[in-house]
């Protein structure tokens, strides 16, 4: 039986009967929907943001020669062609990748004769600062474009007493080279003791033209998607060993599950509060409408029709509150994302229908007090009895 025009007229009257109450109910539903959609959107976004945040920890994928057993600084090596086969992009985002060749060379400050061994890391590729996080304590950009420019770890710099602008002499098994220091880098790791030159310098010193020790990548992907990246790259480079750096992947997964649990339990609590709030309003409605329902029943309205009327009202209210509130919530979440992660959260369309649906459900659940109206007996209402 299709709802008659009369049905809609009654609904309209029911909803507009008391503007104050309509406002309170819509405010509660709208605020609930807003918080729900904001938190759900933030939850999806937090995964990506956290992944990005963890990229500040440096490389998370490493490509090494298959038999990685070496006792001298440059044992097993990779062919340089591996580096060109590493994808430059993943999921639309650039993948910083740097190829390294390590050589233990004899090093001295230009003009001195006291040579000491140090690890030389020849590097090539985009994004060394993402791969090797830390601070450049001293940095002279005007030297960086020099083909012989090199960066020196903070410990190595104090050992060799060099500052940006100084030069270093490098020697290994008869080959010689020199480089001009353009930055001092502090990472707190092994990099502090190393000297970073360009790849060709290291290759010619080690007499290993076209060879690499390893390739490091910083892939901006969630833990699950990172694993599929590693598997794909492993198939693409069958002669090399591709593995993820476990240290960060595990911590990231654990922390995300905490945040996600926190956000979803908050959403549940807030939906529950919203329904309580609406229920408080609806229990007044139930009392007020006794007379109306008594009249409806007296002129032949079945209980089912009356219940349908109130259900339709609840759904309409929930829908209106949900539509308005969720839209607001998505804007709020963009702002929240900016406040928390420094980047506005990307609005997800999937969140909108979900939070509208949740609001409608909450509104139906909150109409529970109206069930009392089903048991209204017209005669006693008209006599003025309660």
């Amino acid at each position, binding site marked *: 039986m299709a709802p008659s025009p009369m049905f809609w007229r009654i609904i309209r009257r029911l909803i507009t009967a008391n503007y*104050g109450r309509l406002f*309170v109910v819509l*405010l*509660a539903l709208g*605020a609930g929907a807003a*918080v729900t959609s904001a*938190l759900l959107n933030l939850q999806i976004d*937090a995964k990506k*943001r956290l992944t990005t*945040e963890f990229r*500040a*920890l440096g490389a998370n994928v490493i490509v090494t020669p298959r*038999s990685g*057993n070496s*006792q001298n*600084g440059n044992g097993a090596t990779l062919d340089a062609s591996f580096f060109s086969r590493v994808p430059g992009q993943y999921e639309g985002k650039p993948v910083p990748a740097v190829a390294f060749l*390590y050589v*233990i060379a004899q090093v001295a400050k230009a003009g001195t004769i006291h040579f*000491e*061994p140090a*690890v030389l890391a020849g590097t090539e590729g985009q994004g060394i600062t993402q791969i090797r*996080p830390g601070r450049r304590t001293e940095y002279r950009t005007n030297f960086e474009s020099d083909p012989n420019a090199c960066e020196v770890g903070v*410990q190595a710099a104090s*050992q060799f007493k060099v500052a940006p602008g100084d030069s270093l002499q490098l020697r290994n098994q008869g080959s010689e080279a020199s480089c001009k220091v353009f930055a001092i880098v*502090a*990472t*707190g*790791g092994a990099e*502090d*003791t*190393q000297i970073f030159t360009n790849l060709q310098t290291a290759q010619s010193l080690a007499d290993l033209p076209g060879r690499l020790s390893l390739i490091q990548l910083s892939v901006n992907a969630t833990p699950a998607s990172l694993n599929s990246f590693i598997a794909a790259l492993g198939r693409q480079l069958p002669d090399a060993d591709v*593995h*993820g*750096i*476990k*240290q*960060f992947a*595990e*911590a990231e997964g*654990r*922390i995300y599950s*905490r*945040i996600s*649990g926190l*956000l979803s*339990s*908050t959403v549940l*609590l*807030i939906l*529950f*509060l919203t329904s*309580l*709030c609406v*229920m*408080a*309003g609806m*229990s007044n409605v139930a*009392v007020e409408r006794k007379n109306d329902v008594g009249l409806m029943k007296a002129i032949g309205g079945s209980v089912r029709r009356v219940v349908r009327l109130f259900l339709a009202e609840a759904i309409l209210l929930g829908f209106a509150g949900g539509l308005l509130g969720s839209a607001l919530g998505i804007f709020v979440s963009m702002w929240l994302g900016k406040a*928390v*992660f420094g980047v506005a959260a990307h609005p997800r369309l999937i969140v909108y229908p979900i939070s509208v649906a949740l609001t409608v459900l909450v509104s139906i659940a909150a109409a529970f007090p109206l069930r009392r109206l089903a048991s209204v007996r017209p005669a006693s209402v008209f006599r003025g009895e309660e």
Partner: protein
Amino acid sequence: MFLRLVADSFTRRPRRKIISMAALAMGMGVATAALSVSLDVGDRLAKEFRSLGANLLVTPEADSLPLEIGGVDYRPANAGAYLPEADLGKLKTIFWRFNIMAFAPIVQSPAQLLTASAMEHPAPADYTDIQVIGTYVNHAVPVPDGTTYVTGIDKTNPWWTVAGRWFREGQHECVVGAALAKRKGLRSGDTVYLSVPDNSKKVQVFSSYAVTGILSTGSSEEEAVVVPLADAQTLARLPQSYRQLYVSALTKPEDAFARKDPKTMTPAEFDTWYCTPYISSIALQISQELKGTDVRVIRRVAEGEGNVLSRVRLLLWLVTGAALLAAALAVGASAAASVIERRTEIGLMKALGANSGLVGILLAAEQLLLALVGGGIGFIVGILLARVLGYRVFGFAPEPRLFVLFVVLGLAALITLLGSAYPVRQASRYDPAPILRGE
């Protein structure tokens, strides 16, 4: 009469009061839960981040430049300086000793490995060059105050997983890196023979070790054999010493103040800095306690941790704010609803000669009573809720705090008054006649 009116309104229509009380209690319960969880969770989250690994590295001050590539130091074992193992207990005597979550000293040396099958008649190809790493696992370190502290690499590097079990000390046991085990076909229960070549002797002595587990770390340790520190010291002939110490410390994320150079601080500033668990002040305290060391902050871990931690904390407070807002709304709405429904009563009171002020005070007194009782119940509900939530999401139950009770009661009173202020004002202005006629 005033008190009787208030009491009557509670006892005559208990059902309605119960509904608005329930809304109030639930709202305040959520507020309590959110507050308790976020007050306690900061420390827990910081501990969670310690699963990133050590954030401080202690090395000898007068050391030659380490030749470290991919976690392996290529200096011969007799080059470079070492630190005395006996001092390690002092780590637990620094000002922030309770923030030292774990530490693990490392001795590393190139060594040779023979498998049991090759031991009888070893061919030159059977001697495999490997790294042997000595460290603590579940090791009881004596602390100068007479107690012991159990720590080890299993705590500093929780992502290291062992298929089988970790070695026990003094039992000639070892764990073998996964890549090495695969290459040499080693399994738990096998025996391997290890030796650190001594160039001054003609005959190399190999000692046997039982493999108790296969170690996966995701980096160069998978090519190494890990033994208890004491065994590595014996093998490498470096008694009672270590070369590197990894320390995992619970820290406060660095802010602008922490980045100041301690040398330029005023004495008062320095005290504040020293008594705040910044990574840099803990590093200073360790280097004061362990003489002749250089304590460096592992930047990639410390900074990554600080960034993520401060963001997650902010998120937590925002979520708490959202929960408080929703709770306030629920409470305010139910307060408003409970006033609206009493229009007839208010009309009657005014018809009998009560003035608007008296009606307002009466309603406010009722709401306050409701707020205090509801807020109290809400606090108890909230504590239970916080336990459930805290346990499920973060694996711990927050402690109930008196401070939260006061905040919640104050909030409940404020919100119910605010929520009912407008309807009460409206109600006290009602003209009694139409209301009593039922219009």
